[in-house]
């Protein structure tokens, strides 16, 4: 991982030099922008939150041998469902005799919205899993198509029934009405110093939810039989089905969970940060490409939910830092997209070295065997190197 990062930064440095920018200055500006001040750190964590949610989901999918590229679409599905629930429940009046219990009602609204967002994303991801399991449709391709479909669905709904009534007719940026306070995720601050750390920033409870879920999913994947089955299918579908595991069901289940986490990323973005769903009509208009960056974070975290936590913070920092770099040195922030791509390539390319090392001991691979065998029927075919190795 570290080697991949160093290589990517080296290539980035060459690019920066080619653009007449001093790489050291650029990295210093990025560090300053990502972690320099209290607010910078908070913004890094704010950006890291959706990446972590998606990254946890991608980890589950990849561990299950499913290459889920649909984080973007699943985020949108989750956000659409979540914001709808939050808007409807937010309108309801609390009966006066129960006014004391207002806090509990608020909690119910937020919880329902989060669950709704999870389920919508999960169903959207599960659809790709279903198509793969029963119709042998390559999940990479289907999730990419579903991303495009979700964007159009969002544009349709935001221009139609979900459009903020106050905006009707004005219609510059399609967006929903603002959520009432009761339906918002509270801001997060740490009781350190005075005023409290992060008290004046946009940091919200989504981060805590994501970290807790990362730990839970770690336990789920490595300490429960359900999680074991997902990983077994990812490692070797044929052996799993001989062992009596329902491979098709596990494929759908891992995509269901992966979509659910991406859905959470979407709904948390609405409830915790923007307080409304809005888009500029482009695919990344709402998600900020977190659906793709989550893939990078998951790989960089070693396909381990706990590892995804620092990885997400790192990529959140890259994104925030890049904006500072753009302001100070005039180097476009899209450099980070290119660097992310390089990191992905380097991480998966370095597996050959990890593999060679581990083959000398016990043959334990870093990532599941079926990853990358896109549209095939890996269940009925041995890979050519299996017999000879």
């Amino acid at each position, binding site marked *: 991982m570290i080697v991949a990062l160093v290589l990517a930064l080296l290539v980035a440095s060459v690019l920066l030099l080619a653009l007449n920018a001093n790489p050291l200055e650029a990295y210093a500006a990025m560090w300053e922008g990502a972690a320099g001040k209290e607010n910078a750190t908070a913004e890094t964590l704010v950006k890291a939150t959706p990446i972590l949610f998606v990254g946890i989901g991608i980890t589950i999918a990849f561990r299950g041998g499913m290459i889920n590229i649909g984080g973007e679409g699943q985020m949108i599905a989750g956000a659409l469902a979540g914001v709808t629930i939050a808007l409807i429940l937010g309108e309801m009046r609390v009966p006066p005799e129960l006014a004391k219990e207002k806090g509990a009602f608020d909690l119910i609204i937020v919880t329902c919205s989060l669950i709704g967002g999870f389920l919508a994303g999960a169903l959207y991801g599960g659809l790709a899993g279903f198509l793969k399991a029963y119709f042998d449709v390559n999940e990479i391709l289907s999730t990419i198509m579903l991303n495009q479909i979700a964007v159009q669905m969002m544009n349709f709904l935001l221009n139609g029934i979900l459009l903020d009534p106050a905006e009707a007719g004005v219609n510059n940026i399609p967006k929903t009405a603002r959520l009432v306070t009761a339906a918002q995720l509270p801001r997060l601050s740490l009781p350190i110093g005075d005023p409290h750390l992060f008290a004046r920033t946009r940091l919200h409870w989504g981060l805590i939810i994501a970290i807790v879920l990362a730990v839970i999913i770690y336990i789920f994947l490595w300490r429960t039989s359900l999680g074991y089955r997902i990983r077994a299918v990812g490692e070797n579908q044929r052996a799993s089905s001989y062992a009596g595991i329902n491979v098709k069901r596990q494929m759908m289940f891992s995509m269901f969970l992966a979509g659910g986490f991406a859905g959470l990323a979407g709904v948390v973005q609405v409830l915790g940060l923007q307080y409304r769903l809005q888009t500029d009509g482009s695919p990344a208009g709402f998600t900020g490409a977190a659906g793709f960056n989550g893939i990078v974070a998951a790989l960089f975290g070693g396909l381990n939910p706990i590892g995804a936590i620092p990885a997400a913070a790192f990529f959140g920092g890259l994104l925030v830092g890049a904006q500072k770099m753009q302001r100070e040195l005039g180097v476009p922030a899209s450099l980070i997209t290119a660097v992310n791509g390089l990191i992905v390539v380097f991480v998966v390319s370095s597996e050959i070295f990890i593999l060679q090392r581990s083959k000398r001991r016990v043959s334990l691979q870093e990532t599941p065997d079926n990853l990358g065998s896109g549209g095939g029927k890996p269940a009925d075919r041995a890979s050519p190197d299996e017999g*000879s190795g």
Partner: protein
Amino acid sequence: MELDAIFTASVFASAIRLATPYIFAALGETFAQRSGVLNLGVDGMMLMGAFTGFYAVFITQQEGTLSEPLSLLFGVLIALIVGGLMGLAMAFVSVTLKAKQGISGIGVYLFGLGLSELLFQQWVGTPKSVSGFPRITFPYLSDIPVLGQIFFHHNLLVYVAFALVPISAFVLNRTTFGLMIRAVGQNPEAADAMGVSVARVRYATTTIGGMLAGLAGASLSIALINLFQQNLTAGQGFIAVALVYFGGWRPWAVAAGAMLFSFVNALQLQIKVIGLDIPSEFAVMAPYVITIIALVFASKRQEQPTALTKPYERGE
């Protein structure tokens, strides 16, 4: 002139034009996949080809260093080279380093997406147009009513793309090189035993795939739209990969899929133009929905190259 006659003719004509980038990219991907390499970075390669091709034309036209036809050919050449280099890189990663192809392709895509946008912002700034490949009219042929409009009012790259379909089919099915490609994708051990270098063939096909992806991008930026902007391809490269599955890895069927897809697209644009009462979002969505449905049916008769996505390791 009758209204609906104009509409149908122009819809068919624009379907043919819109199919151009898909045909280039999907034919290139067909070569790569037939040899066993799933190149998912096509969209990134298209973006880089689109930008560099555009930029070459933009600079040479602005400074007047090359005459217009030469500058366009120069743009095509640059797009081919850049796409080819990215294909070579993809081959190195997936053949030599044996990286998981699905994910590494996504990495290549992100790299191309980011770099093309970076260079565009740095060197060009705002979307500017160039004068791209002009429409060619043929004496007599172009004047045929309806048919002339549909088939004989296109730019050079459209004809090149369609000419590549029979050429690709011929190369794959009738030449020694094609036989080697199919052998390497179907049974690399046997091909290796016959003395065919699995690695060299896969390097060649992936590089060809990259070049055609670069050309596909250029066909957008200097022939179809004549400008570059951030994420110009908007995922067309991924559609091209889907078309290869849809067409069952056969050039003619892949091209037919590209035509079907772009026809739906052209109809969709037409619906907007004549203002039918269908929400435009659903019209835009339709081609993607159809692609998924097509994949469902395509997988039923799948004759996928056996070694697709599987790195070859020689048994010692």
